[in-house]
């Protein structure tokens, strides 16, 4: 590979939230000499221009970090701002936000399984080719995705960047009739979710496990979405406020994104696999059934089980959504009492791709003085490289194409927020 090719990664794509990724691997005498994964990571810029903005603008701005999980950024920002100013929200608001986040899980997991993972594991080029070989699966995917969109639109007021969530609560509520119609569709979609579990159960994951640290929130008696503690399989147990004491970032020369690590240890993984591993006892009955049908024995340390974990979570998200629709009182609107106070606030939520951290410091006028955002992809980047370092030595006998595909799949396991991620991933392998 020429040096010119290696220099193709530029941070010129601010307009495209999906960004670009490049992987650069050099193997000499069977040893990895160079292994760099570089992904353009938008949140860094956001932190800069959030400073000086008012507390009630933050959630609108951060929702633009991502077109795939805008609601997750909104909910996390709102929770952190409310924590900073001491604003209390009602239990109904917490549940509505949870439902909005789950709507995003439904969309995002569906897209991952059918658009990213299925073509890889079923050996077709893209979802368009998949439409030829597995048309019913693609139709199912579009139907599930539409359900996620419609649920987002009902609660958030809009399909992509929700407008109803604000500091202190919601500006509008969908009517009961709307939600009952969605409930009916969710109940029917459970069949599609189980068909999805069946589909992923035939995916053959490479035999690849290592003792990575798995980090996720853990809910108390519920599958974690927008409340809980952050824990790991190696003893981490922190509140949102303590997050920065334990999760550190370091700069690396080859990437514009920082690398996260657990203080005193190393890289770690967030996302559906760790979340499921650490919350197996928080699953509802349908998801427990899905777990058995998934073809994977959880807990698992194999990152290639991401699609299976997402399929189980799809069942869980639909089941949870139905329950939430039943629990929430769909009449009236809660009062939003917001008093502006100075302070610093912290929030953790589980976005589709894993743990999301926001923290803000506001002055007594409610103007942001400091903003800190750590996305799931930012946390996972270090661990993606750690996976690749362990995976590549076993791939050296493969053809260049096969090796490239396996490396791409190892990155796609995390569904890094470079949406078409994978389609834009440039892999340079040098062997000598």
């Amino acid at each position: 590979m020429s040096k010119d090719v290696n220099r193709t990664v530029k941070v010129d794509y601010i307009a495209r939230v999906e960004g670009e990724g490049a992987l650069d691997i050099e193997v000499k005498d069977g040893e990895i000499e160079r292994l760099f994964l570089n992904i353009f990571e938008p949140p860094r810029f956001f932190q800069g221009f959030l400073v000086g903005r008012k507390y009630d603008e933050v959630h609108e701005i951060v929702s633009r970090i991502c077109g795939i999980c805008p609601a997750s950024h909104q909910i996390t920002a709102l929770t952190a701002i409310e924590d900073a100013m001491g604003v209390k929200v009602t239990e109904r608001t917490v549940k509505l936000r949870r439902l909005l986040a789950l709507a995003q899980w439904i969309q995002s997991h569906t897209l991952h399984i059918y658009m990213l993972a299925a073509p890889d594991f079923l050996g077709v080029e893209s979802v368009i080719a998949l439409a030829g070989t597995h048309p019913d699966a693609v139709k199912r995917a579009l139907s599930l995705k539409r359900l996620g969109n419609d649920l987002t639109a009902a609660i958030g007021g809009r399909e992509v960047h929700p407008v109803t969530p604000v500091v202190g609560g919601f500006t509008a509520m969908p009517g009961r009739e709307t939600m009952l119609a969605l409930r009916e569709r969710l109940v029917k979609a459970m069949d599609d979710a189980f068909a999805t579990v069946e589909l992923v159960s035939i995916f053959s994951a490479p035999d690849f496990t290592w003792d990575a640290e798995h980090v996720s929130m853990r809910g108390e008696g519920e599958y974690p979405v927008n409340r809980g503690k952050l824990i790991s399989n190696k003893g981490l147990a922190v509140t949102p406020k303590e997050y920065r004491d334990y999760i550190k970032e370091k700069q690396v020369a080859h990437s514009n994104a920082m690398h996260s690590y657990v203080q005193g240890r190393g890289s770690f993984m967030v996302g559906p696999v760790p979340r499921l591993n650490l919350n197996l006892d928080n699953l509802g009955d349908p998801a427990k059934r899905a777990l058995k049908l998934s073809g994977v024995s959880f807990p698992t340390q194999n990152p290639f089980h991401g699609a299976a974990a997402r399929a189980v979570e799809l069942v869980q998200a639909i089941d949870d959504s139905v329950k939430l629709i039943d629990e929430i009182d769909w009449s009236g609107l809660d009062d939003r009492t917001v008093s502006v106070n100075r302070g610093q606030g912290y929030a953790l939520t589980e976005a589709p791709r894993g743990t999301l951290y926001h923290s803000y410091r506001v002055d007594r006028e409610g103007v942001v003085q400091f903003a800190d955002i750590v996305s799931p992809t930012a946390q996972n980047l270090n661990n993606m490289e750690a996976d690749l370092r362990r995976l590549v030595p076993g791939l050296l006998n493969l053809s260049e194409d096969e090796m490239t595909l396996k490396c791409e799949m190892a990155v796609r396991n995390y569904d890094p927020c470079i949406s078409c991620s994978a389609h834009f991933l440039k892999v340079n392998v040098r062997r000598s």
Partner: protein
Amino acid sequence: MEGRPPPGIVVVGTGNESSGDDGAGLRVARALLREPLPPYVSVYEAGMAGLRLIDLWMGCDLCIVVDAMDAGEPPGTIREFGGAQAALECLGGAGTGVSSHGARLKEALELGAALGPPYVPGEVRVIGIQADPERVRFGTEGLSPEVEAACEQVVARIHELLANL
């Protein structure tokens, strides 16, 4: 289609108005939304929509997609393509270069075509407006005068298409 009435005719404007002339399709959709239209016509500002386009046009008899394009013509030139295949050919060419979402419309059309009706509209008509390539940059506000004038013509053209059905 689940949860929504079956649309007869769908007009979709796509693009990114933060990228100057790339917002042409949105401008046309917005203009149409301000005017009285027959009840069987639905108009959407679809922004950077990708596969969501399939949700918008699913089951409809005719879908008119308005998008900025780069066909190497003078800015403001209007081109009309009938049929999904013609649209694919047009988008597979220069069109994807200038517009950050061109490939997405192409993918949505391809996927819809692969799945067949109702995932692909009964008829597709793509109206492309030649952008000034110098004015398709992120952070550019507003449309160039030529493209602005072309948008008005496209609005009139869509009224004509609807009247002659």
